[in-house]
């Protein structure tokens, strides 16, 4: 399936679960990505994003590993080495979506138990917000809300860049950020509306 977004007149196309935004890519003559630097500078954030997506340490590590394997194969095609982190995030997200489709298609694959919990999200807003509760509340959100929120919180990525990474229209990202936050705040404040 081909999904596409427009950003700054630039069309970004995913052609399959393992393809990447072509706007990140270019031919020969581009500055070369320093692979080891890309590991040292970004691996923690990439892993954390993967962790918030799949909520499982092993799966997150696998997703991160996959992203860097792809980077190793395709780094010469990356148009702008400064965007390598966004590129890695995009790879992680596409792979996660791909895997999630398979889980849905073959439900015998267990989804991490952590996502099933619902009683962890209690908090005390008059004092300090319970970090564990906040994390649990985030992890209870649906995938399509959790992904943009994770990027927003984890890496302070502007919503337009989030749209680019997730291959979504900017308006959709804005809407999902709002809905995600609303659900999160309601859960953290105990507001059930």
């Amino acid at each position: 399936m081909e999904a596409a977004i427009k950003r700054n007149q630039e069309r970004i196309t995913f052609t399959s679960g393992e393809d990447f935004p072509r706007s990140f890519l270019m031919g020969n003559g581009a500055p070369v990505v320093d692979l080891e630097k890309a590991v040292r500078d970004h691996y923690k954030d990439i892993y954390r994003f993967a962790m918030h997506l799949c909520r499982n340490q092993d799966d997150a590590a696998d997703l991160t590993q996959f992203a860097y394997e792809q980077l190793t194969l395709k780094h010469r095609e990356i148009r702008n080495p400064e965007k390598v982190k966004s590129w890695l995030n995009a790879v992680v997200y596409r792979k996660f979506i791909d895997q999630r489709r398979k889980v849905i298609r073959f439900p015998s694959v267990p989804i991490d138990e952590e996502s099933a919990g619902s009683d962890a999200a209690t908090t005390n807003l008059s004092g300090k917000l319970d970090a564990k509760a906040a994390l649990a509340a985030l992890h209870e959100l649906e995938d399509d809300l959790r992904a943009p929120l994770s990027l927003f919180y984890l890496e302070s990525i502007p919503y337009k860049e989030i749209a680019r990474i997730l291959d979504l229209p900017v308006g959709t990202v804005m809407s999902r950020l709002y809905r995600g936050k609303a659900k999160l705040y309601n859960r953290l404040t105990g507001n059930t509306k």
Partner: protein
Amino acid sequence: MNKQRAKEILSTYMKDSSMETDPEVQQALDLAESDPELLEWMQLQAEVDPVLRDTLSDIPVPKDLEARLLETVRKESPTVASTRPPRRLRLVGWGIAATLLVSISTFWFLRQNEDIVQNLQHSVSGVSPDDFSHFRDGMAYYINDVYFRLDHITKDLDSIESWLSNRESPVYEDLPDALTALDPIGCKQLQWQGLDVSLVCFHTTDGRIVHLFLLDRDAATDSQFSGIDAVARSSGLETAGWVSPSTVYLLVGSDPSVDIEFALG
């Protein structure tokens, strides 16, 4: 701007970012100052978002992950830019190769099928050696205008003699010493006006080629070889011959610059 739209815009808002200069964000911020619900939303964001940001960033990362990833990227094969030529160039290359292959095949086929080539030549020029009533002119034309291959290639004159003899093709009796001193190249059987003709080729000392045609005297009429002992040009080539009791001989140079008189003895 309605309240819902303002909330969506404010949800994307990050303090101290370039968003503050965005007129739509500014409008939403202004609206929030006068709207209690939006104000509450902003306060909630201000309280919760930093905590979430810190919390999410505190997720522990496996200790060995960095090493594993570094190992992964170090495994990259030291490939350089592809040496494969561009697709267009490859297509041109394949085209040239195919053309060469077809050309070579055609050339090889034609070389193996002398009759086809001669028929082609005949159909193009409309002339064949048989059209000449005099042995000299027919053979000179043959050398000058007809593609042919030798049937038997050897430097041994005795071998040539026996090869021709075995095929009942005209054979020489006595050759001038000047001819026998040359290096033979080989021989060929051919037909001219229904008569068997033998062709024997020699390399001259200066690397040129002379051709000796042999015709059974009894098979031919006198008019076909009359005056053959005179040196004369035919088809631009120097020609001259002699007649023995059983054989008519005709010597023809391979090109206009070849002098054949030396061989006549």
